[in-house]
């Protein structure tokens, strides 16, 4: 019973942060702040949603034992989480670098120190 409560809390946190990412893409003014909203919030939200999946399968394991079909499903969900955790920050870094080198300035920017570092 306590596992169900924890599952619902994790689902609520995950859905809230995914919604924050979707809303933040519309509320922020330029590329870099949108990148901040769109990448970090979805990573955090997906961590909590997949943790909810794992906790729910723990409650299945308590009832049926480790050999239930839920085990394979949970293992694959964790592999999907690892894929997200490895690829999402890397692609965010690539997008930020590409945006700056293609000449998109931050909104209301006064000083751009990265401009001097250009090869």
């Amino acid at each position, binding site marked *: 019973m306590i596992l169900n409560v924890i599952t619902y809390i994790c689902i609520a946190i995950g859905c809230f942060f995914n919604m924050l990412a*979707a*809303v933040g*893409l519309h509320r922020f003014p330029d590329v870099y702040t949108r990148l901040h909203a769109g990448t970090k919030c*979805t*990573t955090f939200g*997906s961590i909590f949603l997949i943790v909810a999946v794992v906790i729910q399968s723990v409650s299945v394991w308590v009832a049926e034992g480790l050999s239930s079909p839920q085990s394979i*499903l949970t293992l*694959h969900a964790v592999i999907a989480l690892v894929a*997200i955790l490895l690829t999402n920050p890397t692609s965010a870094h690539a*997008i930020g670098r590409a945006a700056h080198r293609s000449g998109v300035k931050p909104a209301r920017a006064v000083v751009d120190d990265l401009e001097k570092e250009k090869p």
Partner: protein
Amino acid sequence: MWLPVAVFLAVCIFIVLVRLFLGPTQPDRLVGLDTLNTIVVVTMVILGVAFKEVIYIDVGIVYALLSFVTTLFIAKYIEKGKF
């Protein structure tokens, strides 16, 4: 229990899709695409748990890796103007 979560994430996908169509510059659209890819992967995992089908989650893993390569290539294209 899991199906309403998938529906909620689908609504989030549509909100992100509006930014992908509106986005004033090219990197804006790319940010929208990247966010959309992550939410789609999580939605596939949730759908797999909801219907108890492992194949949905496998599709999600492959989608995550392929969308990563896609994002890197589009970022390289935006950066240099050519591949």
